[in-house]
């Protein structure tokens, strides 16, 4: 499935919903349906699609790193704190412009789950495993675990991968 197939399918579902709402208005003169308890419900006719724009300027280097094959964290030279996900401000020392360091690729799984009931925006994926791994530098990473077998305590590697079908770079955990 390509991302366009996913989008088309989604648009079809939306247009189906809208046309059945139109039918309801035709029939009853108002957008009112009955739910399974027999209660009348007014179906909102003012729909809203949300897609946020999240500023990433302060951690742009992380995304450049992914392109270069590196998974980067930030490190405060004053107190030594390593930040992952990366952030450019050390609130402890109240300084900015932290150093960029590479995350180690070896770690151990400390918790995991298999997502069976998925949010609609993830419904085009097979059930996926999300894990938290403690990496060699003591910093935790949350990511999908690409593995058939999974258990707490298993050794994992952190690597860059392409998220399909969206086709963008991200990172995942695989068995070491």
């Amino acid at each position, binding site marked *: 499935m390509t991302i366009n197939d996913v989008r088309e399918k989604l648009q079809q579902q939306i247009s189906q919903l809208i046309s059945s709402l139109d039918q309801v208005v035709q029939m009853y003169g108002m957008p009112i349906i009955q739910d399974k308890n027999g209660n009348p419900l007014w179906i909102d006719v003012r729909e809203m699609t949300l897609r946020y724009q999240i500023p990433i300027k302060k951690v742009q280097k992380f995304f450049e790193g992914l392109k270069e094959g590196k998974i980067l964290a930030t490190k405060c030279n004053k107190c030594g704190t390593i930040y992952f996900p990366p952030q450019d401000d050390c609130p402890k020392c109240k300084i900015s412009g932290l150093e960029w360091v590479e995350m180690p690729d070896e770690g151990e799984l400390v*918790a995991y789950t298999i997502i069976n009931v998925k*949010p609609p925006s993830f419904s085009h*994926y097979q059930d996926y495993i999300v894990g938290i791994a403690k990496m060699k530098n003591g910093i935790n990473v949350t990511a999908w675990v690409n593995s058939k077998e999974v258990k707490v305590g298993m050794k994992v590697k952190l690597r860059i991968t392409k998220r399909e079908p969206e086709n963008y770079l991200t990172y995942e955990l695989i068995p070491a």
Partner: protein
Amino acid sequence: MRNVAIIGTGHTKFGVRTDVNLQELAWEAIKQALEEANLDQKDIQYFVVGNVGSWSAEELPAVVVGEYSDLTPKGTMRVEAACATGSAALRDAYLAIKSGEADIALAVGVEQMHQSPNPQVVELIGRAGDYFWEFENFGLTFPGYYALHASAYMAKYGAKEEDLGKIAIKSHHYGARNPYAQFQKEITMDEYLKSKPVAYPLKLLDSSPITDGAAAVVLASEEVAKKITDSPVWIVSQGVASGTANLSKRTDFTHIEAAYLAAQQAYSRAGINFDEAWRFFDVAEVHDCFTIAEIMAYEDLGFAKRGEGYLLAREEQTYIGGKIPVNVDGGLKAKGHPIGATGISMAVAITRQLLYRAPKGTQVNVKHGMGISHNVGGTGHYAYVTIFSTRRPSS
């Protein structure tokens, strides 16, 4: 600082409440609380509305609730603390009175999750962690966050699926006896074990449902409370703490640090020794949005040692008559979890227990006159622990 008492409680039937809209639902609870306190809206000097929203249509719920309930033009605000929103609303009203800003205040928690279809609610609630690094990229769901804890806890301490099941069975046992509960039927271990996986290792019967409901309390200062009622229930203390939005920033996935810190605060203000905390209380309401959460709550509240919470469940020590009765109203699991109302629902349940007004088959034996509520927002993003007593606090 002044003592603060609960002098009126209100609670709607929890469940699918598509027979009323948000403000109508809130009014059901507010009306009951006003009637119990024998007060009118004009007596309420300040009211606070707990509502998380986003699944329901009204953007400014405190305002529409105030208007519908004839509380306008009294001062108000909407508070949000995820699943602990109700406790945050209680806190705001409590502090208003404690500080002397108001003598009588009302806190109402209301949530109507069924204004959105279930898949959309799954989507919205999954976004409740660190949006970008947890949801956008890795699609964590709300059960998923607690499932991470469950897998870590089970691996470390050897708790079994059946131990989680014991929690669900207890909740349904008491839910079946609570006329306000969403699920009023018992379940068996077999049904539990066969229930649909949601986020491994958690199943449908490990999870609290999507719910509509409201709960309200009227609070008063000591001076006013004594004039109004012979049976005030005092808020002895409240502890409050927060945790990271991003789960990976935590060092431990086998307990909820914020809840533990909130308990420490509440206990220290109430003069309660953590290690034998259970001896002080007749009843506890703990945040069991998922069965694993109740087990971690036993430990975070000092009812069981670290790693032994599941044994309390296994040995059925949290039924009425056991070491400490917990969630004998059905808990979030069976009573339902209308996110913004839950914390106030807990306060209502404890108050009614301490006054011997709990539904038949759920009433505990009140020996100490004390109860406790533990309300966690998100997965330990927020935590509130509140101690209630029929005895007037000394300070």
